[in-house]
């Protein structure tokens, strides 16, 4: 496999399963930003064509294989009041 320059955007599936996970138990140093740190889960999610890293939302207790889906998450609030969002994955029923 080579890294090419002739690339195009491809829409990924929005559902997948947890491939691995951990909990960020301590507050990261800068450049990390938040509106107040609380431990949060991070995982790799197997979407089929690729495994993507992202936040695992609403829980710090996960298992490999848990089904998840893409969701929007609040990352931090800028000084001018603009809420900055990031992507994450939440449990799907």
């Amino acid at each position, binding site marked *: 496999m080579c890294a090419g320059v002739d690339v195009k955007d491809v829409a990924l599936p929005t559902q997948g399963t947890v491939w691995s996970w*951990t909990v*960020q*138990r301590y507050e990261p140093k*800068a450049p*990390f930003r938040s509106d107040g740190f609380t431990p949060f889960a991070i995982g790799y999610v197997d979407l089929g064509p690729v495994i993507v*890293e*992202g936040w695992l939302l609403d829980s710090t207790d996960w298992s*490999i294989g848990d089904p998840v889906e893409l969701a929007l998450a609040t990352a931090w609030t800028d000084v001018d009041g603009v809420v900055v969002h990031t992507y994450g994955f939440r449990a799907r029923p």
Partner: protein
Amino acid sequence: MSEDVYIVGASRTVFGRFEGEDHDLAEEAVRGALADAGITWRDVDVAVGGTNGETKPDNLVSRLGLTALPFITVKNGCATGGVALLTARNMLMDGNDIACVVGYDNHSRGAFNASPARYGIGDWYGQTGMMLTTSYFGLKARRYLHDHAISDRTLGMVSKKAFDYGEAHPKAWRRKPVSVDEAMDAEVINDPLTRFMFCAPNAGGVALVLARGQRAFDMCDKPVKLAAVELRGRRPGSFEVFSPWLSLGERTSPSIDAAAAAFAAAHVTPADVQVAQVQDTDSGAEIIHLGETGLCTDQAAAFARGDFDIDGRLPINTDGGCLANGEPVGASGLRQVYEVATQLQGRAEGKQVPGAPRVGFTHVYGAPGISACTVLTTTA
């Protein structure tokens, strides 16, 4: 024999917190290695220095002597020591007789704080708290233990072993024993890893003197042969730090490739190894690297049997490894070689492997997906 390269002098500092200048550590190590080899700086033909900090190794000549020798600087993250050794070996094979290799660093407290831009990743990755080595170690360990049906408790066994060895080593940093239960029950840093399962950046220096051919035997009673030193990068399918995504398919690793190349070059197999060092930046990494290097195929059973203890089948990280020594990045890979070389010479400073081991192995691994492995053998 004439083209083979040997370790004929070695020295390391105590590892830990250090208030002086980075070059103090490097100078102490170099002067120690020169004394061990019974030579002076003037006798050295070429030098290689490695650090992950901001100082310039090649300016050590202002302390050691302006002899006009070529002095190469390397900076390859956690694999710096291995790359420095490889570079020196190559300069000797190029016709020089004596090389000095030094690695050192003096890191501030806490986990490394990497800049996304330096790795070609967007700022968002650091801003959202994902650009951390510790979470990578947790994520990688979790998946590996899952894939290989290894219980979390093996992680605690790795820590116990490391601190048992560290307790006995006068130059290690963390020398207080930790039971498996203590390791398991300690504060969790990044699940499934607790604070006794991570090494921390700290300070230290290591230097080696290498010599080629007959010259080595003129200088040293028990030269240790550098039977192989091999460096490899990553292929598709490897799982590296700071990866916002991973590809599917077969999992590859630069450690698998570097170890296989080193064993092939030295004409030995993993089963021949009697003392070894593998990169243990965390307890999970040691388990993973024992497998990837080919040294062990059933880590859970091996830890349960005590295979890696000083009287076991294959003593591993006999100075306590990164877990007990901390990781001054530039020095760490050379610390491994120092420890295995002194084991093979029967003059280990901590626990000595019994039975006069003849074949040793070292492995470093680091960002952005590189590994360097050595095979060391006795010459008696």
